[in-house]
């Protein structure tokens, strides 16, 4: 006898359908994997190809992203796709040729239509018996071998691209090295800035400008993404700004000031001094002015003459100080103690001001040196990577890159520029920032000539004396009737250059500044600027 409707076999049907539904989901997911795997792998291939065209950090990670998205999509499709028991029954009926038994049974379960002939229980029993015989293995688990083959082919290409050397990796390594060097140099510049801040007069406007420039440079280097050109440009810009704050005659002024201080101190104490600071010199002037009433006229005249001579020596370095010394000399010559004290105070103030200026200039020079060091460090960081790249990429591509025995920084400049111009097989390294900079003094315009430099060699330099820059020129003249020395102040004619031979370390900065200024004004082609910078880096006597 068939079961009645009250003895419905459906409780047995639904769990079985749920189980088969899970297998259906799994099978559908498997088929989706086979259908779409080639597409995911194709995206991986495209990412890897893009990473070979443009530098892409973490390229393998980026290549895994589409694969992960694809996998997530497959999982979501497999387990979250709506698949009701009715849909499962329909699909099982169609796939396993069950003649719509299961779907009809599910529908009849909730049917309230009259069934006078008791067809429903019979149908439900028939469907339940069929469901009990269902096995997951009866489902069609076959997948398209053609699509699987496509996926395998694309996956092979993707794996090949993953494991084959990528030329962009060298660029990325180079960028990372430059970035690390930029960070390091930012810290070094911070130290230089702190030193400048602590060693100079806080009221100086130039000091504030210099600090601001250094701050800007630190921020720029810290944010540098690995662009060597940008880092060098930032450095050059800051150097140019600092250069504007620097005085070309700072060294001469410092020397003159030291000499003046020593002589003033010796004059006051009556014994020669190897060195003395400006504070002692100022104090010596005060003592000289105070001792004026006790001096006889000849001693006053001698003292005045000495002061005049010191003023003349100082005039080239500091006109204000020279003027105050002349005033003091005149006061001494006149025997006016009050005026002498007043003039001595003025001269003491001028000395202090000159000392502060000298301190600032020294600090600026130190900052410039720090920037130069940073430039060299950055250039070397890019250079090392570029060499590695060049070696990797020029192998088997012919000769032609410059060969020579480079002399490192702080060594005697004995670089031999024996590079061969031209050469077959251009390299990527040639186009990279910092490329072909191997620490040699290679002159790009004369590649076959050895460049010889010497730290202490004498070198032609324009006269940095009082004629330059329109500085006032003080020339000792005849004495007046009152015994005063006539001082004629005139402007030196421009272009009247007095040639001389000086140690090149004294003029190096001038030439380097001129070169930097030319580069800033684009007087030097961009592709040669690195050579120029390297040239001066090699010549740097520090």
């Amino acid at each position, binding site marked *: 006898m068939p079961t009645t409707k009250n003895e419905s076999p459906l409780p047995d049907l639904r769990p079985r359908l749920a189980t088969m539904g899970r297998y259906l989901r799994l099978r559908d997911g498997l088929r989706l994997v086979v259908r779409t795997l080639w597409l995911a792998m194709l995206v991986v291939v495209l990412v890897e190809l893009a990473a070979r065209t443009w530098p892409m950090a973490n390229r393998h990670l980026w290549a895994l992203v589409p694969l992960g998205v694809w996998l997530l999509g497959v999982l979501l499709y497999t387990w979250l796709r709506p698949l009701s028991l009715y849909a499962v029954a*329909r699909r099982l*009926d*169609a796939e396993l040729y069950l*003649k*719509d*038994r299961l*779907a*009809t*049974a599910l*529908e*009849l379960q909730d*049917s309230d*239509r009259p*069934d*006078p*002939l*008791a*067809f*429903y229980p*019979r*149908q439900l029993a*028939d*469907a339940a018996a069929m469901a009990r015989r269902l096995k997951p293995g009866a489902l069609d688990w076959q997948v398209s071998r053609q699509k699987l083959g496509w996926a395998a082919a694309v996956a092979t290409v993707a794996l090949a691209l993953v494991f084959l050397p990528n030329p962009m990796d060298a660029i990325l390594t180079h960028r990372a090295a430059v970035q690390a060097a930029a960070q390091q140099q930012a810290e070094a510049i911070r130290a230089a800035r702190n030193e400048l801040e602590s060693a100079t007069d806080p009221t100086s406007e130039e000091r504030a400008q210099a600090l601001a420039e250094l701050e800007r440079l630190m921020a720029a280097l810290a944010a540098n993404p690995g662009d060597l050109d940008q880092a060098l440009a930032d450095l050059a810009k800051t150097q140019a700004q600092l250069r504007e704050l620097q005085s070309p005659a700072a060294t001469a002024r410092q020397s003159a000031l030291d000499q003046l201080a020593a002589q003033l101190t010796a004059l006051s104490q009556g014994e020669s001094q190897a060195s003395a600071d400006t504070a002692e010199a100022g104090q010596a002037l005060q003592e000289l002015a105070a001792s004026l009433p006790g001096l006889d006229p000849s001693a006053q005249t001698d003292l005045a003459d000495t002061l005049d001579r010191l003023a003349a020596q100082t005039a080239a370095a500091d006109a204000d100080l020279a003027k105050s010394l002349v005033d003091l000399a005149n006061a001494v010559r006149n025997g006016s103690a009050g005026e002498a004290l007043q003039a001595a105070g003025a001269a003491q103030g001028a000395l202090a001001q000159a000392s502060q200026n000298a301190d600032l200039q020294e600090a600026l020079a130190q900052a410039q040196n720090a920037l130069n060091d940073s430039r060299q460090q950055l250039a070397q960081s890019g250079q090392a990577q570029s060499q590695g790249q060049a070696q990797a990429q020029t192998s088997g591509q012919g000769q032609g890159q410059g060969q020579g025995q480079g002399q490192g920084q702080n060594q005697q400049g004995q670089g031999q520029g024996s590079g061969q111009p031209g050469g077959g097989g251009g390299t990527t390294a040639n186009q990279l920032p910092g490329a072909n900079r191997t620490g040699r003094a290679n002159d790009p315009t004369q590649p076959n000539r050895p460049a010889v430099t010497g730290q202490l060699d004498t070198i032609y330099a324009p006269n940095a004396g009082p004629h330059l820059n329109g500085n006032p020129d003080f020339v000792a003249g005849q004495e007046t009737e009152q015994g005063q020395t006539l001082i004629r102040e005139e402007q030196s004619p421009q272009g009247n250059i007095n040639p001389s031979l000086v140690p090149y370390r004294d003029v190096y900065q001038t030439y380097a500044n001129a070169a930097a200024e030319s580069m800033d004004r684009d007087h030097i082609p961009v592709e040669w600027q690195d050579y120029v910078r390297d040239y001066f880096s090699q010549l740097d006597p520090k």
Partner: protein
Amino acid sequence: MTNPAFTIENFRTTATTIEAAVGEVIVGQQALVRHTLITLLAGGNALLEGVPGLGKTVLVRTLARVIDCDFSRIQFTPDLMPADIVGTNLIAEDEQGRRVFRFEAGPIFANLVLADEINRATPKTQSAMLEAMQEQSVTVARTTRPIPAPFFVLATQNPLEMDGTYPLPEAQLDRFFFKLNVPYPSVEELVAIADRTTGRDSRDLKPVADGPTIVAMQQVARAVPIAQHVTLAAARLTRATHPDDDHAPDVVRRYVRYGASPRGMQAIILAGKIIALLDGRYNVAIDDLQAAAYPALRHRIILNFEAQAEGVTTDAVIEAVLNTPALAA
């Protein structure tokens, strides 16, 4: 149920017994026998199309003998009148000698009627026959007389000799449950026919069912449950035979002038129920509908002139419809 002793489980047994009994006489033609039986159990009427001599009359006669029912054969001719089919009132004397009208029933009053070459009668006569088929009753002189159940008409028409015939209009064709093509026997079947009909042996057929059993089976068949999606598939299938339907295949759009009527869908579903029972199932499957689609729809699809000119048959159109993927959704 007319026969309370009949059970659902007996349906398949009885039907296959009838089928086997008919098969003892009819050589081959299994599909024809199966579809004829389905039409009988569905309470419908069948139109057989085939050349003469293929055993159509034998089929009906054998079937009538197997199910122990009355059988009559009407040979349709152009001069056949409606009264010759349904019967007429005759003047007769009653027991007291008075003259009264007495109804003389025509050959339509039988359980199984063979309307041979129905397309040779005039439309008026055809319509009288078709009215009886549809209503299962006859009205003569304002008196309606029911035809005893089961009532099964098997009409035939010869596709070759069409001169001087009156082809059945579409509306009347629609009243046939199935249109069955009678194929020509194969060589082996011809040999078997020769052996059975030219020798001395004669088959002694015994009834395996009766009229009430057939009526009970008809009621059982209508009670078979059908799922909603199966009914929907039948509706889509029928709708797809119309050239203006969204899911109609190109063949339908190009060659069909008018698609199947709702009666076609009813025939498909009812036949599907019987096929399911014959298959031992208690539910209708979409496969059952597809199996019934050819005989149920081939006379309900009206082709256009282009199809006739190109020799496209309705079976080809039905095949195209069945292969439409949207119908299985």
